[in-house]
Structures are given as C-alpha cells and as structure tokens.
C-alpha cells in the first residue's frame, strides 16, 4: 500500500483533553480521562459497551459539558463550547445511529456541510445574482468532489431516507467532510455494515487522512479494523482510561484483555 509514503507526517498536539469528569446525576460517564490527539493521526477509542466512548465524542464536539476538566484545541483553551462553535473551529462528526436530513437529497445533505463556508449576503443569494452565484457554484463543485471521492455519484439526487444503511453512513461521512474539518470524529463508522462495506469505509477513512491530512478520532468495535487503520488506541472501561498506545501495545495490555474478556472489576483491580 502507498499509505506510508504519501501520508502527512504526524505533528504537534491538535487536541488535548485533561482530567475530564462527566456525570449524569449519580452516574459517572467519564472519570479523569486524559489523552491527546496529534495532527494528522488516526486515533481509535475502544472499549466495551457503556464505557463512555460516545460521551467522550460528545464532550469534544460540545454536546456535553464536563463538570471538570480542560480541553485545548489548536492550542487554545476551550470554555463551555457549543456544538455550533466547535463546528466553526473545525470539528466535524458523524453519529452512531446516522443523523441525516432524511427528506433531503444526498447532494443537499452534503451541501449543508458547506453552510458555514458560505459568506455571501442573503439578498444576493435570494436573487441568485453576482458573487452569490459564483459562490454557490464553487460550493457545489466542492460537494461534487466529495461525492466523487466517496463514490456515491449514482445516489446524488435520491432522498437519503430511502438509501440503505451502509450508504447513509457514507453520506453522513460526506457531509462531515464537506466542512473541511481539521478534526473529524467518527462514531462507529462501520457499525451494522457487511464485510465489503466495511472495507470500503476503511479505505475512505485512510484516504481522507492521506489526501486531506484530516486528523481522525474514531470509535469502533471491530478489533480487526481498529488494529488496521489506527495509529494509536485509547481504551476506556467504565468511564476510565485503562490503556493508551499503539495497536500492538494495547493488544498485549493485560487490563485491556481483562476488560474485553469480562473479568470482574474487583479481580482486575
């Protein structure tokens, strides 16, 4: 594979989360979780069900606000950020149970990802004149490029509600990609897919990382996939980080093996 030669080399820290504590009432979703994500890398967050993986993404993307802990993104400290602001700063995401705009076509869904990039006056847009027209065409071209990239030309005009699940996931990825994010959060991008679809998705994720240099944080259950595509892995269990490292290191880590084999917590501790 050409993966090694053409990749952007992993750089400085892009995102760091420090001692994040998140609780819903009495339930602790995240306890003292810290890790960092470096530029251009693919980081996987793994762990058993209910380990707090999705909560972690929700914290990064501003859906949840942790009770304690610090988040730095692009070197800046973030105060209670709203999802809208996270998007402005260059964080895009997909969801575990596909969150698409079901009545809209594939193309329009992807165009919503361009929303933040459109700057022209509403009046010009309404009249479809002058600079706004050029701008619309330009964004349309960007959307088409993504459609080509993800090989979904044939479903361009179809309302996404009618598409099979695997394709919906792909459109959702396209929408996130249209935002030209610096950090892309993928929540189980391969859940519910068959082998072939999984392979396609893997390829897309690696290609995105390669071509655009996008930093990716993903949650995945399929261990084979995680080991293949990620540079580093963070393992969560019961809201705590139990391991971090390269796929190989994590694979041989006793705590991780215990967590996955279901050793009871008293014994493991």
């Amino acid at each position, binding site marked *: 594979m050409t993966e090694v030669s053409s990749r952007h080399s992993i750089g400085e820290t892009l995102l760091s989360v420090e001692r994040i504590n998140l609780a819903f009432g009495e339930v602790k979703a995240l306890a003292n979780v810290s890790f960092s994500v470096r530029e251009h890398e693919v980081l996987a967050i793994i762990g058993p069900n209910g380990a707090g993986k999705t909560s972690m993404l929700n914290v990064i993307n501003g859906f949840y606000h942790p009770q304690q802990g610090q988040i730095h993104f692009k070197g800046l400290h973030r105060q209670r950020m709203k999802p809208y602001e996270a998007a402005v700063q260059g964080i895009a995401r997909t969801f575990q149970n596909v969150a698409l705009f079901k009545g809209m076509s594939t193309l329009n869904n992807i165009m*919503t990802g361009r929303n933040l990039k459109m700057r022209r006056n509403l009046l010009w847009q309404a009249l479809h004149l002058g600079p706004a027209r050029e701008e619309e065409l330009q964004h349309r071209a960007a959307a088409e490029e993504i459609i080509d990239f993800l090989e979904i030309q044939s479903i361009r005009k179809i309302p996404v509600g009618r598409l099979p699940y695997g394709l919906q996931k792909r459109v959702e990825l396209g929408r996130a990609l249209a935002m030209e994010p610096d950090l892309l959060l993928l929540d189980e991008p391969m859940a519910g897919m068959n082998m072939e679809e999984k392979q396609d998705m893997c390829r897309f994720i690696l290609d995105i990382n390669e071509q655009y240099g996008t930093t990716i944080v993903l949650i995945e259950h399929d261990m084979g996939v995680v080991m293949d595509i990620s540079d580093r892995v963070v393992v969560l269990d019961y809201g705590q980080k139990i391991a971090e490292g390269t796929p190989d290191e994590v694979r041989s880590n006793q705590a991780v093996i215990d967590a996955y084999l279901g050793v009871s917590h008293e014994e493991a501790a």
Partner: protein
Amino acid sequence: MDLFLLETCISGLMAGVMYALVALGFVLIFKASGVFNFSQGVLCLFAALTLFDFLSEKGWFARIFGFALPVWLAIICTIFVMIGLAWLIERLILRYLINTDPIILFMATIGLSFILEGVGDILFGSDVKPLDIGIPQGAWDYLLDNHNFYVEKLEVVAAATAAILVATLALFFNRTRIGRALRAVADDHQAALSVGISLNTIWVIVWSVSGIVALVAGVMWGSKSGIQFSLSLIALKALPVLILGGFTSIPGAIVGGLIIGVGEKVAEVYAGPFVGGAIENWFAYMLALGFLLFRPQGLFGERIIERV
C-alpha cells in the same frame, strides 16, 4: 360560465387568500422545527393589536410619547416588536427545549398562545377595534358599474400582498443558505448542530419571519372585520388548509387556502340549500378529512419516507 358562479369563485379565492396568509405562518415554523405552532393565530392578533396601538391616539404609545405614529412608521415599529417577540420566545422558551420531542414544543406553543392572548387583553383591552391603515374599502366600482360584478377592493389588495409575500419568502427559503439550514433543523437537531447550524439563530429568524407574516395576516383580517379576539380562532381554519397543502410547503399553503376558500363558497351557494345551509363552517374539515385518508402528506408536502 355564468357570471354568478364566477363571482362566487372570486369571492372564494379572496377568502382563500386570507386563510392562506394565516397558514403561511404555520408552514414557516413547521418547516423549521417540525412543530405545529398553535400560537400563530394569536400572533396575528397580537401583531394587529400592536399596530393599532401605535396608530391610535389613545394607545400606550400615544399616552407615553404624546403623539401617534403615521401608518408607515407604525408598521415598521410593529415589525420590530414582532422581531423582539421572536427573540424573547427563543430566549425564554425554545432554547430550553432543544432536542425534545415535537409534542413538547407543541405544548409550549399552546402555553404561549394563552400568554400572548392574556397579555394582549391586559395591554390593549378586548373590545373590537376598527383597523384603518388606508387600504381601500368597499366594492370595486368600475367592475360593479360596467359589468355588474362585485369584488371587494380590500380583498384584491390582500391577494396582491399575499402574492408579493410568497414570492419573497420563496426566494429567501429556496435560494439562501438559511433555507437549507432551516430544513436541516426541521429534520434533525443534533445533526444540524454538528454541521455548525446555530439553532438559536435559525429559530429567531423563523419566528421573526412568521411574526411578520402574522402581521400581514392580522392587518388584512383586522381591516376586513376589525381586530377582535376571535381572530385567534382563524388558526383553526388554517388547519384544513395545511392538511390540504402539506405542512411543509409554502406554495401548498397558498393553493390549499385557495381551494378551501373557493370550495366552501361554492358548496355553500350550490349545495347549501339542500342541506339547510351553513356548509361553509364544516366543509373545509370534511375536505381535510378526505385528504387525510388518501394523501396524508397533502398536495405539496414532502413524501413521508419510512424504512422498515
């Protein structure tokens, strides 16, 4: 076609325009939040009352500043009041209901309608107020004299206004990024947030626009039959209009309004005598019922897609 039928149809069309104006406000909010805004009728009333207050010598404005406003300025001020109201509604109610079920938002709008009605009553009193902002009244003399054909001037003005309003809204919502953002918000709050659409901004915009539409509807109804609290009940007539036209379609609201307007007038005149009259009151609902059975998404609504 005989002249009488034509006249009936035209007067039906004009009544339909009035329904459509109210229905339009519903559609806007439904498009943006998937919620039937029960308070739209009261919003019309409130807008008309505010406008009346700015114009009246005895209104709050005149009492505080010592003079009443000219019509054009009063309209502009009312628009600002409606925008302010939209901002307040977002700030005090909608903001806390992000990501909740549409039924909860619906209940909130019912509450809002009671609040607005109460506030309107306390501030402006519940007597019927004649609204005159210089829209010509009475029959169109030329047609009446030469062709013995009766058309109300006010209704012609209402139709023209509605046409301009719809054209503007269509441009705004189909061509601008706000339009796309709006549909996105209606579909999925979380996803909309994640692509950087600010729900708060969208809601303020939509409620402002539907407040302005409410103002237009309120002015037309107020000029026709005076501003009275029964105005808020027109909301009920807008319901069959929406079922006919589709809850999410701006042209649908207009076409639905026209069909209902013409339908009930023609039915009243031609079928009324056989059943003892008063068809006008329930015809619209019968028509809506038929549509619910055979085409639940309405004439122009988005297809309801459900994968099993």
